[in-house]
């Protein structure tokens, strides 16, 4: 059967048979790099278009519909425009940090692509501390945002960056705590293990209400962590013009913009992997027949479907809710999400020890 796993294995075998191991490894590195950049670009284009279409339909508009059929090439045209625009560096800005910041944000986003299992056996790096790696690397992007805000030498940017810093640091907590519930249930930090543990049902169904609560907490926390509305205080348009990227233009702005969407994708991919079984098809316990039918749908489609469902959920939030105020944002985290997820963690631990899950 032709699947992503077979193709990748084929390439791997062919490279190792043709070249000596060192060269083969180098070739694989290069291929991986190209794939990562390709995924980055394609996802950016797709997600931006998706966001615009979703927003448009919710706002009883048509959305982009001029470039290509259904406006499919609108984002390509926009990217071309951004590439051709002049990348200004303001006079008073710290030139090095100002130009470095978008790359840091982008690199942090790209690093996160590594441990995600895209399909059965398709994973760039099956590191045994996958979950830890993700939570560690995802906090690098806040450095980039702070750098951008500080180096721009603009008051709006500075305020935006500070808000973003406070926000990401706080929400990391409940995101982490809700992820840990799954780690406790699985007993492993490795993402492939976590997916395999959901062979007879996804955690969100197996884990009763506590996992549902931690799923909701996770979605809220990652929405905040990716600076998405209703938590988009860092770039709150009506308050801070554009927040930390006020001074950016051209491709440097595009990098921030793309990184935002990649971050959304990764956050949703992780959510899908941890709670919704990743690439694992929809299985119910030991109903062999039903499970076999579900297996006919390729695992990559399961993964993409779940991830895009979560992305759609986040877009739905964004186009429905007003923005929170900065103190309410922190209230929500420290007064509601954190106590709930801590309590929830306790319940899940008890549940895991007693084996009260399917």
């Amino acid at each position, binding site marked *: 059967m032709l699947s992503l796993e077979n193709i990748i294995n084929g390439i791997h075998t062919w490279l190792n048979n043709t070249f000596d191991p060192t060269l083969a490894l180098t070739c694989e590195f290069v291929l991986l790099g190209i794939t990562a950049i390709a995924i980055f670009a394609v996802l950016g284009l797709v997600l931006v278009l998706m966001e615009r279409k979703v927003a448009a339909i919710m706002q*009883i*508009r048509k959305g982009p519909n001029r470039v290509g059929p259904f406006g499919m090439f609108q984002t390509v045209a926009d990217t071309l425009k951004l590439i051709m625009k002049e990348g200004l560096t303001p006079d008073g800005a710290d030139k090095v940090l100002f130009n470095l910041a978008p790359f840091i944000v982008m690199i942090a986003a790209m690093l996160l692509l590594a441990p995600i299992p895209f399909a059965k056996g398709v994973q760039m790096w099956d590191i045994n501390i996958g979950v830890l790696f993700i939570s560690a690397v995802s906090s690098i992007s806040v450095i980039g945002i702070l750098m951008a805000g500080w180096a721009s030498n603009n008051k709006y940017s500075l305020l935006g960056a500070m808000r973003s810093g406070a926000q990401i640091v706080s929400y990391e907590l409940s995101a982490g705590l809700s992820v840990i519930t799954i780690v406790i249930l699985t007993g492993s930090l490795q993402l492939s293990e976590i997916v395999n543990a959901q062979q007879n049902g996804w955690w969100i169904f197996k884990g009763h209400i506590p996992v549902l609560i931690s799923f909701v907490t996770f979605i809220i926390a990652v929405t905040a962590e990716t600076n998405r509305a209703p938590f988009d205080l860092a770039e709150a348009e009506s308050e801070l013009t554009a927040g930390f990227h006020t001074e950016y233009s051209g491709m440097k702005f595009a990098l921030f913009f793309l990184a935002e969407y990649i971050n959304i994708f990764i956050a949703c991919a992780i959510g899908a992997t941890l709670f919704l079984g990743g690439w694992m098809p929809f299985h119910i316990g030991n109903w062999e027949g039903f499970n076999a039918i579900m297996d006919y749908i390729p695992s990559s489609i399961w993964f993409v479907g779940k991830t895009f469902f979560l992305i759609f959920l986040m877009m739905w939030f964004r186009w429905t809710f007003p923005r929170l105020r900065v103190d309410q944002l922190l209230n929500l985290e420290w007064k509601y999400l954190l106590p709930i997820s801590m309590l929830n963690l306790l319940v899940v631990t008890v549940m895991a020890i007693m084996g009260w899950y399917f």
Partner: protein
Amino acid sequence: MFITNYIKEIFNGVKSLLTGMRITGYYFVHPKEIITEQYPDNRATLKMANRFRGEVVMIHNENNEHACTGCSACELACPNGTIKIINKFDINAEGKKKKAIDTFVYHLELCTMCNLCVIACPTDTIKMDQTFEHSVFDRSQLTKVLNRPGSKIKAGVE
């Protein structure tokens, strides 16, 4: 009690959020509600209301005749100096001098479409047209002469 209130607060909050999401969700699955008009594409079917005030035009009949006597009532009525009437004196059949308009200059760039000139006109010579696509590359193109070349005053209009 504190805990009850706390839980109630969360419950009501989430409920209100879901109510909002139901509305946007409704519109997401009902693309028929879309109200966008695709303007340049629908020009053929786009019908402006009859009273829509787009610009001032002078009514000419098929014999290229208008009813303007050059009384400059419109010029006086205009708050912005949009209209400038230049008169000439025709000599009619009986050898008498008769006032008639030479050029009816209309500055579209100054016009606010307030309709005062149309009301002021005693002979109903000018009216508001429904065109609204006024953009041009040069401001001087907005200065128009409303009486057509070679047009004459209608017989019987005083």
